[in-house]
């Protein structure tokens, strides 16, 4: 009886020990290395000058692989997304950023399209208004001609009566 109890206790303690060390092992296996999703979240905001128009997260060249490794290293070192983007911008130029900063000449990229759209819309509205005015003038011209015809008819009738 005692032997069974001791055996059970032993087995239970072994189980608890294994569970503890097992879970500790898992904890120790974890590190601070960033996930692929975290790396890709920044990568998709960068373009390497070697492969134009392909974001870093979708590019398979060696250059892009190296750049993604750099992002991973910087994230592991505790850098923020903005710090990493700034680093790449300083190192390789503003052109590597998917969204160039709104300053200096880059302002044109942000303000020109809506401004052009506004100017274009105004021009179209103006053109339509002008066309409508011209049509109205034409209509009134036509109605005047109708009136004139009516008067001509009346004069002709009266002249006939005179005859």
């Amino acid at each position, binding site marked *: 009886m005692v032997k069974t109890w001791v055996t059970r206790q032993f087995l239970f303690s072994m189980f608890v020990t294994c569970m503890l060390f097992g879970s500790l092992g898992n904890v120790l296996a974890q590190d601070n290395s960033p996930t692929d999703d975290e790396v890709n979240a920044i990568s998709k905001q960068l373009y*390497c*000058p*070697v492969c134009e128009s392909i974001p870093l997260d979708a590019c398979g*060249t*060696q*250059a892009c*692989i*190296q*750049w993604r*490794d*750099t992002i991973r290293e910087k994230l592991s070192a505790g850098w923020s997304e903005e710090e990493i983007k700034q680093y790449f911008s*300083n*190192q*390789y*130029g503003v*052109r590597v950023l998917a969204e160039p900063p709104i300053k200096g000449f880059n302002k044109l990229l942000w303000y*020109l399209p809506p401004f*052009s759209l506004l*100017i274009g819309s105004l*021009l179209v509205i103006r053109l339509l208004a002008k066309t409508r005015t011209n049509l109205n003038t034409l209509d009134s011209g036509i109605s005047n001609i109708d009136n004139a015809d009516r008067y001509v008819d009346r004069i002709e009738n009266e002249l006939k009566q005179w005859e």
Partner: protein
Amino acid sequence: MGMSRINSTKTSPSYSIIRHAKDKLGQIAVWTLLATLLVFLAIKLFQSSLGPVRSGTPPDFTLTTFSGQTYTLSELKGQIVIVNFWASWCDPCKAEAADLEMIWHDYKDRDVLLLGIDYADTKDEALTYLSTWNITYPNGPDVGTRISQSYRIRGVPETYIVTQDGLLAKSFIGPTSYENIAVILEALLDK
């Protein structure tokens, strides 16, 4: 009464002149804006279609090497300067790496300077590349890709040979060899 005054103002000759002038000014402003935009686009398209620098005075630059030395091209007159654009991820660059090191080895004492410009690369891989190929001539990163943009390079490797007078003697687009460079160097040194 008020309404008729407004109507009479609107039909007055001065009102129509002002309105006409306003319309004209608006048109001029829009056309000027469009013309400026077109000129700007034309300039940018022209610049992008120019291709790499081929003759004349090459663009000036200052290169800070991985070891911290600084070289400014315009201050190097009197010696032949070979400017080589490369990157650690570039396979064709590896094909010419040994030849470039040999050129440096054979000509460095004859007033020839070889500068390696590391394009769009990461520092660790670049240093590994230099060590793998035993490269000893000065090399530095193209910070902000400013130098490569000013030379309008299309890719790597590209090599430019600048004469003692600071003029571009020859450019090689793609990998080059010891023989190709040596012929140019000998011709320039014989002058």
